[in-house]
């Protein structure tokens, strides 16, 4: 695969040197006219010492990498927890050191870490910080100082979370949903310091994220470069932007429920606590409503699913388009689908609560709204595969991750229709089917995109190409392994095996699945271990990797057209780029090359049949 880049190197270099200074004097000024700048140049604070350059840094790109590394660290912790859980489930005789308390603590921490501290932070904090200013043509985020504080708040939140492993009683073991009364009741593992640290950590995360989120939103809304309209933005930016909107509006519910639960725990209020009889004694609580917590939690929790999924949708659209050398099919539809899914996600939260004992009539409302979301989501899937159709698909590692994403996402999306449709959900909820569904759709599928994005943008961040051969091994082991973990797991759910069971071998229909459970555990160990291939690959590449040069993938979007690779602080050198077209002009008939960067003015590609600008 790599020869093609070598062959085309000279041609793209010629192209890019012309296009970087694209707005200059050209033969047809009317044709290339772009409105003058509304906003003056942004003042940037350039770090002078090691500390201001790399630690308390105000450069969004460094902050992005900091977010990325911190999130990956928590992700590895989550991965190790999942290994321990799988060891217990597959080979309980080998996991003699694990008690039920440990198991439930690991379940809880694995869930919370992966959803909030790993995926959310990685997509929005990591990719968002790195890519938004580059892709919309800004010098930096609009409030660099606030952005820096945002990261350090996140860092403290992670530290507080990790501290809960070392306090007496250990971390909380109430399930990642932290349902009361369970979560703060004596007897639940970690119901003392553990749950408090978890709630504090979540509150810090929300506060820190709000600072970052304001930055992402205002950068996209108010700091785009000349010519960059919203409908010319790459879908990556659309995905991250919409996800940030959701986060800004959904995290308040989490903050509120955290505060209320903290008060229940510390002050003995009864927001969520009804009269409770525990070990023969009536507790001092009374009159509260556990269902209220569930509503607040899922009012946050469902948008949270899309906070993870939408950036993945956006990024994968870009990757597929670049690597199949074809414009993304139905760009406008894709944008509206992202926005529509985001908006609808605030009206569907209680489909997580069909069997929770809420007002039974809600089932009709939420089943309907939930299944409406299936339509824009399905449109996105069609558009991805239609982008492949009649393209020129580079079967490199990045594309493999994208294809893996399509398979796992379609699989998980369709099981989502099972669980969103109220009647079908009743027998399946709280079984392994649910586990299989959400791991497939918001665990594996976004992870595939993250991996693809790492292979895609690593040349930009580090200036070197990751090893393709190692990358392919990494992909196949991860994809096949992960698929064989979660695909059979659906069938455990059909049998009726409930979630969150520490042991499960004493009922006839569960006994039949012993062999499968062992197989799933083995696959989980292998898939987890395979992730270290990537870490090895990165370390190796940083030392001896092939230099990437400028724009190795021959992509159109602005991040590949910076003054230097990797881009320096300020991103674009002396002059900000001027945008003349959308990011997807690949293989335009009549063009010399199979891509036309966003900065190329129309007068330079006058003979091409460009349809949309």
């Amino acid at each position, binding site marked *: 695969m790599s020869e093609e880049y070598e062959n085309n190197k000279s041609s793209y270099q010629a192209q890019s040197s012309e296009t970087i200074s694209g707005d200059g004097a050209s033969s047809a000024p009317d044709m290339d006219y772009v409105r003058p700048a509304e906003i003056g140049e942004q003042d940037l604070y350039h770090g002078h010492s090691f500390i201001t350059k790399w630690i308390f840094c105000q450069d969004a790109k460094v902050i992005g990498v900091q977010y990325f590394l911190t999130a990956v660290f928590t992700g590895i912790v989550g991965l190790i927890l999942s290994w321990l859980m799988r060891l217990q489930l597959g080979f309980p005789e080998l996991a003699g050191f694990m008690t039920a308390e440990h198991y439930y603590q690991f379940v809880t921490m694995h869930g919370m870490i992966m959803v909030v501290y790993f995926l959310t932070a990685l997509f929005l904090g990591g990719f968002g910080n790195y890519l938004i200013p580059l892709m919309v043509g800004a010098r930096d985020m609009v409030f660099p100082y606030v952005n820096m504080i945002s990261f350090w708040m996140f860092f403290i939140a992670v530290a507080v979370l990790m501290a809960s492993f070392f306090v007496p009683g250990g971390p909380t073991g109430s399930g990642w949903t932290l349902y009361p009364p369970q979560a703060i009741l004596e*007897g639940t593992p970690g119901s003392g310091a553990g749950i408090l640290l978890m709630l504090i950590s979540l509150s810090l995360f929300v506060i820190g994220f709000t600072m970052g989120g304001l930055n992402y939103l205002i950068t996209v809304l108010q700091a785009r470069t000349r010519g960059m309209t919203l409908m010319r933005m790459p879908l990556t930016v659309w995905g991250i932007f919409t996800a940030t909107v959701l986060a800004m509006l959904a995290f308040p519910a989490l903050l509120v429920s955290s505060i209320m639960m903290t008060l229940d725990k510390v002050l003995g209020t009864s927001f969520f606590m009804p009269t409770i009889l525990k070990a023969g004694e009536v507790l001092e609580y009374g009159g509260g409503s556990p269902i209220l917590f569930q509503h607040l939690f899922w009012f946050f929790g469902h948008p949270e699913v899309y906070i993870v999924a939408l950036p993945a949708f956006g990024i994968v659209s870009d990757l597929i388009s670049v690597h199949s050398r074809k414009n993304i099919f139905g760009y406008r539809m894709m944008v509206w689908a992202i926005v529509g899914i985001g908006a609808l996600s605030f009206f569907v939260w209680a489909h997580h609560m069909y069997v929770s004992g809420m007002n039974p009539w809600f089932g009709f409302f939420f089943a309907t709204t939930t299944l409406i979301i299936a339509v824009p989501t399905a449109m996105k899937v069609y558009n991805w595969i239609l982008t492949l159709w009649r393209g020129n698909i580079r079967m490199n590692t990045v594309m493999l991750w994208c294809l893996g994403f399509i398979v796992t996402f379609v699989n998980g999306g369709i099981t989502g229709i099972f669980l969103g449709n109220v009647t079908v959900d009743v027998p399946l909820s709280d079984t392994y089917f649910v586990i299989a569904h959400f791991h497939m759709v918001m665990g594996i599928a976004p992870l595939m995109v993250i991996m693809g994005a790492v292979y895609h943008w690593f040349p930009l961040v580090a200036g070197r190409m990751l090893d393709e051969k190692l990358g392919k091994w990494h992909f196949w082991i991860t994809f096949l392994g992960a698929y064989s973990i979660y695909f059979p797991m659906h069938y455990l759910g059909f049998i009726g095996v409930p979630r969150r069971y520490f042991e499960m071998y004493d009922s006839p229909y569960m006994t039949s699945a012993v062999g499968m459970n062992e197989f799933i555990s083995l696959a989980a160990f292998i898939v987890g271990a395979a992730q270290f291939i990537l870490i090895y690959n990165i370390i190796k590449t940083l030392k001896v990797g092939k230099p990437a040069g400028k724009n190795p993938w021959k992509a159109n979007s602005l991040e590949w057209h910076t003054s230097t690779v990797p881009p320096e602080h300020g991103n674009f050198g002396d002059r900000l780029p001027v945008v003349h077209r959308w990011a997807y002009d690949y293989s335009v008939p009549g063009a010399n090359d199979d891509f036309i960067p966003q900065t190329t003015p129309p007068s330079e590609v006058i003979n091409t049949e460009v349809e949309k600008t």
Partner: protein
Amino acid sequence: MHAGFIFLAVIVGSVLFHIFTPWYWTDIASNWGAMDDTITLTFWVGGGVFVAVCLFMVYCVFKFSYKEGRKVEYKPEDKKLEKILTWATTIGVVALLAPGLVVWNQYVNVPKNAIEIDVMAWQWGWQYRLPGKDGKLGNTKIVNINEDNPFGIILEDPNGNDDVLIQSDVINLKTNRPVKILLRSVDVLHNWYVPQFRAKMDAIPGVITYYWFEPNKTGEYEVLCAEYCGVGHYAMRGGVNVQSEEDYEKWLQEQETFSDLIAKQKKLELETEKLAKKINLNIE
């Protein structure tokens, strides 16, 4: 090229797995066959879409792999195609949703002749209460629960006296007679779930939740707790014994009612008193 083959193998493997899987749902033992039907319907429609989308993808991989200078289609949008796909998906979604809503309507509306059963859950166990001859359950209060009154029945409530108390985690049910399960928890969330009956609902402290089903196959079934309720969650089991009408009536006769329990306790108290007196006498 090999990538396409592996993806193809994954798709075909998934279908084969589904066909030959030894793991599938347990035989249904209640009236909720309609739930199985909706699952089957969703399975066929969804599975069809999954296979079609993935096969299309694999076809693209085979057909359009990178070739220098291949002519690539440049067509940013196709309004007509997008419209067709949107409508087709919408119709499919409506077809899946409509039966679901119809069945849910049956699920939330309990038949008039259903027997109410009070299912009380705690960490970690179950016990049950059936209405007595009056067909009505007495009201309860958590603070009333003690050794003498294991269900916390309000003593002043006349409906409570003839309630049949089953202080065991196994309950017997009559075939072909709907039961309305009234779920009650005294501490945390629980969920009374029998896989063979398909239906389930959480028990929440502070309120009472319900669902109903009609067992239609005699036999013994296992009750699982399906909502995480603490470290004993996985071991929180119970049982259901679905019996024919005669067996059930016979079983019901043997059960103790609340007034029996009170009488028994009174007797016990009297006896202890007598015993104490006797001992006192002896000492004197």
